[in-house]
């Protein structure tokens, strides 16, 4: 009896683990509810992105291109709602919604208090 329970536990564990391993950024939208590629292009345009490539990955649309700030991006889009599932910048960090900006913040010192960060050119 005990052995049966143990075997059952092992089997259920083995069956459950692939589900547990499935990544959170996968999309599970039935094919019938998928929006067309053109809709994805329109959505990207509305965001100010320049699209280089649209492909399907892990059940999501994936856009590769350049965002409005000129940074390279890879964005996963839910094919049904066209919501952003995950956004990566070129440096490989997922920073879709953490509010980090492309312009480095001026350092906290007493001199640099102006709104624009210092700039330099070499001629």
């Amino acid at each position, binding site marked *: 009896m005990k052995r049966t329970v143990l075997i059952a536990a092992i089997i259920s564990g083995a069956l459950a683990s692939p589900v547990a391993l499935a990544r959170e950024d996968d999309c599970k939208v039935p094919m019938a509810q998928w929006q067309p590629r053109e809709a994805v292009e329109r959505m990207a345009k509305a965001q100010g992105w320049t699209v280089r490539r649209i492909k399907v990955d892990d059940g999501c649309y994936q856009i590769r291109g350049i965002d409005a700030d000129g940074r390279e991006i890879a964005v996963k889009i839910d094919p049904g709602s066209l919501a952003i599932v995950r956004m990566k910048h070129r440096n490989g960090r997922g920073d879709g919604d953490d509010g980090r900006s492309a312009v480095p913040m001026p*350092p906290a010192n007493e*001199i640099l208090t102006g709104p624009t960060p210092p*700039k*330099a050119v070499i001629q």
Partner: protein
Amino acid sequence: MRIKTLIAGLAMTTALTVPGLAMARPITLTTTLKNYGGNGAYLALYVTDASGAYKGTLWVAGSKSKYYSHLSGWERASRGNVAGINGITGASVGAGRTLKVTVDLADALFDAGYKLHIDVAAEDMRDSPSEVVVPLTTAGAGRPMAGRSYIQTFTYGM
């Protein structure tokens, strides 16, 4: 009533922000190097107050922090605060080239005893801390001055 309050509020906030903006102005710091015949130079531009105490860095030309110890005046003043220069570093400056830094400086820094220092160092050559030390004054703006060994001319303009 509500709109009136809104307008009054807007007027107040605008009145509060406008002087804030007027208190800083963009300053261009132009440093031209001599043809000293060596590799690109590292420069640190920083400000000290009337008592000589370090107040802050405006720009560091040269991105490898392992060489910052050669900018000895700046390193000592800032206590090697590399984190404090995040976002204000750039490439080193070649011999004979001109570095132009544009920075917003508070009006309060002018005619109040503040001094701008420039440290220079180049590979296998003599370090030159405080190569230029110039008091920040409105009268001194646009007046070129020479450095000790690497800097041909330095001017700050408003």
